[in-house]
C-alpha cells in the first residue's frame, strides 16, 4: 500500500476524532455535574454536601413581588431590557434587637419598598410604611435600585441610603423608631441614575463616607427623555455613562462631594462596587465592576485614590461586570474578588472572573489572575449578584450566584437582535430608537442558579439543584445572613419582576461555627471595614464588615465563620478601621461574640 493513502486514512480518522471532541467534552462535563446531584433531596444533600436550602418566604410572612418601572414611552420596544434592574436586598438590624431584618426595594412608580422586621419567632413583618421608608418611589422622584445601610452619625443605629434612578435619598434612623429624610441637609445632588453605592471610611476619620456609582448619565430623566441617544456607545468600551460620586462625611450631617479631588473620575457604566483593604495597608480600596467595559480598581493611600485596573490585571479585558464580592477562598488571609459577567451558549461567552492575588505580589505591586475557569466558577449564565459565605460550615467559603436577565416567552429569544445591534458602530448602538423591538422575547431567561461549594482544594462544585435551589426567576441581588441566630447562613434573593426568596439553611450539626458582631468606637460605629482574622486548625481566614457588596445588596454586618469538624480555635485578631489591633483569645465554637472596639 502506498504511503499517502495510508496517511490519508489515518488523518481522516484523526479529523473525525477532532470533530467528535466537543461532544466528548460535553459528556465529561455532564457526568461531573450529575455526580453532584441533579434533583433536590434533603437527606441526600445533607449526607453529601452537609446542608440543604429550603425556600420559606411565604411561610415566614414574606410575600413580596418586585415590580419593574415603566419608563418613557420612547423606550417601549426595549422596555423589558432597559427596565431590567431595581430588585435589591440588604440585611440590617435597624432596631438593634440582635435579630437581622430585611429591606427590599421596589421599582414601579408609586410602588412601596419593604422593611421586614424580624419578629424573633421565625416570622417577619413589614414595618416600612410605619417607619417612613416605604413610599419612596413616587412619580417624579425616580424609583429605587438598591439600598445600603451605615451609621453615618455614629449614634448606634444604621441609617439608610437609597440608591435610585432618580433623587437619591438618605434616611436617618431615629433609634429604630422611625426614619427621617435628610437628603437635602446632607447635600446630595438632585438626581443620579445609580445602581451601586457603598459605605466605607476611606480616610479613616471614624466617619462613614459614601461612594455612589452612576449608570445612566445624571442628566437623563428616564421618564422624560429629551433624546433616545442615552444608550451605551459601545458594548464593551462605553464611557458615556453616569459620573461617580464620593461623599466625604463632614460629621455634621453634611457630605462634601470629593470624587475629583481624590482621583475618582470615570464615566463608565458602574453596576456594582465594594470596598475592602485588599493590600493590607489599613486603607480600604474600591473595586468597581462596570457594565459595557473593564472593571476599575481604585487603590487608596488614605487620602487619594489611583486607578490600577490595568496595572493589577483586573481592568484589561472588557466584559459586562455586574457584581463585586470579596472572599478569602483559600484561607490564606487574602481576598479574591468575584465579578460576574455574561455567558450564553452559542451567543456570547464572557465568563465570570475570579480575581485571585498572584503569589508573591502584594502592596502597590499586587497583581491578580483570573482563576474562575480553573476553580469551576466561570460559567453562570447572565450572571448578576453573588456572595461568598460558608453555607455548610465546613471551614471554606462557598459562592452563591443568581442569574437570568429577561424571562418572557420561553420559546423566543432576543439574542440574535441583541448581537446584531451590539456589534455596531457607536452612532447606532447608542440610540435606543435603533434597537429592534423585544416583542415579548426572552433574553437569557429562566436560568438555573449556581451554588458552588468550595472543596478546599482549589475547586468549586455546583450543587444548586441537589441542595434545593431550583428557582429560575430573573435573579438580581443575593444577601447572606444568619436570619434566625442559629449559626448558619441563610440566603435571601431579590428577583426582578419576581418574588423575594428566603432560603432557610439546614446544616449538618457536626460542622461548627462562630460569629462576631463588631461595634466601633474610634472607628465608625458600624465597624464597616473592620477585619477579623480567625485562626483555627492551623489555618486563618479573614472576613471584613462590608458597607455593600454583590449586586445591589448588603450582607449582615455580623461575620459568620464555618469551622468544620473538631475545630481547635486559636484566636482572632481584629483590625479596626482606626488602625487599632485587638486580639481575642479563648474563643469557643457555637457562639456569637459581641465585641466593641477598645477605647
Amino acid at each position, binding site marked *: 500500500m502506498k504511503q499517502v493513502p495510508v496517511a490519508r486514512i489515518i488523518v481522516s480518522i484523526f479529523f473525525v476524532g477532532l470533530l467528535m471532541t466537543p461532544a466528548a467534552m460535553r459528556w465529561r462535563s455532564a457526568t461531573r455535574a450529575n455526580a453532584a446531584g441533579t434533583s433536590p433531596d434533603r437527606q441526600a444533600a445533607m449526607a453529601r454536601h452537609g446542608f440543604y436550602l429550603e425556600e420559606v418566604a411565604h411561610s415566614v410572612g414574606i410575600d413580596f413581588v418586585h415590580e419593574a418601572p415603566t419608563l418613557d414611552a420612547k423606550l417601549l420596544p426595549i422596555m423589558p431590557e432597559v427596565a431590567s434592574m431595581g430588585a435589591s436586598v440588604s440585611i440590617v438590624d435597624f432596631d438593634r434587637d440582635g435579630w437581622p431584618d430585611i429591606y427590599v426595594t421596589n421599582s414601579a412608580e408609586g410602588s412601596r419598598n419593604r422593611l421586614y422586621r424580624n419578629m424573633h419567632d421565625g416570622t417577619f413583618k413589614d414595618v416600612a410604611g410605619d417607619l417612613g421608608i416605604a413610599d419612596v418611589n413616587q412619580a417624579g422622584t425616580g424609583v429605587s435600585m438598591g439600598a445600603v445601610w451605615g451609621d453615618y452619625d455614629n449614634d448606634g443605629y444604621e441609617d439608610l441610603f437609597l440608591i435610585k434612578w432618580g433623587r437619591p435619598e438618605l434616611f436617618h434612623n431615629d433609634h429604630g423608631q422611625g426614619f427621617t429624610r435628610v437628603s437635602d441637609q446632607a447635600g446630595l445632588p438632585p438626581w443620579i441614575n445609580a445602581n451601586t453605592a457603598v459605605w466605607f471610611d476611606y480616610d479613616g476619620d471614624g466617619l462613614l463616607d459614601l461612594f455612589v456609582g452612576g449608570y445612566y448619565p445624571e442628566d437623563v430623566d428616564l421618564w422624560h427623555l429629551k433624546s433616545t441617544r442615552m444608550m451605551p456607545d459601545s458594548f*464593551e468600551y462605553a464611557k458615556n455613562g453616569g459620573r461617580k460620586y464620593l461623599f466625604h462625611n463632614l460629621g455634621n450631617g453634611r457630605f462634601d462631594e470629593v470624587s475629583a479631588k481624590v482621583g475618582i473620575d470615570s464615566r463608565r457604566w458602574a453596576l456594582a462596587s465594594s470596598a475592602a483593604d485588599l493590600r493590607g495597608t489599613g486603607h480600604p480600596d474600591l473595586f468597581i465592576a462596570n457594565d459595557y467595559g473593564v472593571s476599575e480598581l481604585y487603590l487608596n493611600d488614605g487620602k487619594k485614590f489611583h486607578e490600577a485596573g490595568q496595572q493589577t490585571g483586573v481592568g484589561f479585558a472588557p466584559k459586562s461586570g455586574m457584581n463585586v464580592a470579596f472572599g478569602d477562598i483559600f484561607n490564606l488571609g487574602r481576598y479574591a474578588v468575584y465579578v460576574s459577567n455574561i455567558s450564553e*451558549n452559542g451567543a456570547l461567552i464572557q465568563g465570570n472572573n475570579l480575581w485571585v492575588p498572584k503569589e508573591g505580589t502584594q502592596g502597590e505591586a499586587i497583581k491578580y489572575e483570573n482563576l474562575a475557569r480553573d476553580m469551576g466558577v466561570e460559567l453562570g449564565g447572565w450572571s448578576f449578584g453573588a456572595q461568598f459565605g460558608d453555607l455548610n460550615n465546613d471551614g471554606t467559603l462557598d459562592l452563591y450566584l443568581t442569574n437570568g436577565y429577561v424571562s418572557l416567552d420561553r420559546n423566543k429569544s432576543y439574542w440574535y437582535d441583541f448581537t446584531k445591534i451590539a456589534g455596531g458602530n457607536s452612532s447606532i*448602538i447608542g440610540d435606543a430608537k435603533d434597537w429592534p423591538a423585544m416583542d415579548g422575547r426572552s433574553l437569557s431567561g429562566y436560568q438555573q442558579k449556581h451554588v458552588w461549594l468550595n472543596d478546599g482544594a482549589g475547586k468549586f462544585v455546583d450543587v444548586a439543584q441537589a441542595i434545593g435551589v431550583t428557582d429560575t426567576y430573573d435573579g438580581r441581588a443575593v444577601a447572606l445572613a444568619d436570619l434566625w441566630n442559629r449559626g448558619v447562613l441563610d440566603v435571601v434573593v431579590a428577583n426582578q419582576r419576581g418574588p423575594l426568596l428566603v432560603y432557610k439553611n439546614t446544616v449538618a450539626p457536626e460542622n461548627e461555627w462562630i460569629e462576631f458582631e463588631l461595634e466601633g468606637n474610634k472607628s465608625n460605629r458600624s465597624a464597616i471595614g473592620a477585619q477579623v482574622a480567625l485562626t483555627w486548625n492551623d489555618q486563618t481566614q479573614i472576613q471584613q464588615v462590608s458597607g455593600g457588596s454583590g449586586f445591589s445588596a448588603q450582607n449582615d454586618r455580623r461575620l459568620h465563620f464555618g469551622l468544620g469538624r473538631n475545630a481547635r480555635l486559636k484566636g482572632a485578631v481584629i483590625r479596626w478601621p482606626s488602625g487599632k489591633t485587638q486580639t481575642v483569645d479563648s474563643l469557643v465554637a457555637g457562639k456569637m461574640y459581641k465585641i466593641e472596639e477598645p477605647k
Partner: protein
Amino acid sequence: MSPETMAQSTPQIKISSKKRWLSLDNRFVPPLFITLILLVGHLSFGILESYQKTLLAIMTAVVAELILGRVFTHQWPHLASAYITGISVGILLRSPAFWPYVLCSLIAITSKYVLRLNGRHLWNPSNFGICAMLFLASDAVATLSIQWGNNLWAMLVIWLLGSVIIWRLRRFHICAVYVGSFLLLSVLRAWITGDPWLSEVSPITGPEYQLFIFFMITDPKTTVKSKMGQSIVAFCVAVVEMLFRLDQSIYAPLYALFWVGPCATLIEMWIVSRRSANGTPTKLTTNTVRP
C-alpha cells in the same frame, strides 16, 4: 481573500536579488498585515482573549501544518498560511477555555488535507474550523461578534489595511459587490422584520465584519476564478446570509460562506470538467490554483 490562501496564491513576481533585499516576499505581506491588525486592535481595544490563547492557536496551526504538509507533500510547507489560520482563529474565536483554540486550529488545518476534491480543498480553513466549533461546541465558544470596540477608528484602520491588501491583489470588486448587496438586502430585511433599518446595517459597521469582508469572502478557494463568477458568489453569500439572518442566526455571515463557498467551487469544477470534455479551453483570469 482569506489570509491563509492569500498567502499561498499571491502572484510571484520575479525580482532581482538586489530588489529582493529591499522588498518583502509577497507571501509575507498578508501575515504582516493581519499581525498589524491584531496588534492595533489589541493595543487599542484589547480584542484578544489573551496573548496565550492566540499564541496557542498559532502554534497549533503551525505544528499541524508542518506535520501534515511533510506527510502529504514530502517537503516542508511554507508556514505563512498556517500562521494566518492560527491568527484568524486567535482573533475570531472567543472562549474562556484554552482547548477550543487548539481544537479549532487543528480542525482548520486538517480540513485542508482531508476535505479535498481533485487536489483542491473545498473550505476556507479558518471558516471551516470556526463554523465547526460553532456547530459542535456552542456551549464553549462564540466568535468575535460584539466584543470588539464600536469605535470608528478601529473600523477605519481595518478598512484601510484591508483595502490596501485587496486592491493589491485585484479583488476589491468582491468586497464591493458583497457590501453593496448587504446594504441593499438590509433594506429588504428591515421591511420584512419591521426592525429599524439601522439595526440591519449595524453588523457591517462592526470591525469584526471587516475581517470577514476582507479576509474571508475573497478567498480563491471559496470563490471561482472569473471576475464575474466571483461577483456572483459574493452576491450569493449576501443572499444566503440574509436567509440565515431571517432565521435569527447570530453567525449568519460565517454560515453563509460555509455553504456557498464549497458549492461555488464544486459548480466551477463541474463546468471546467464539462468544458475539458468538450475540448473548450478554460480561461483562468486571476490567481491560479495551488497544485
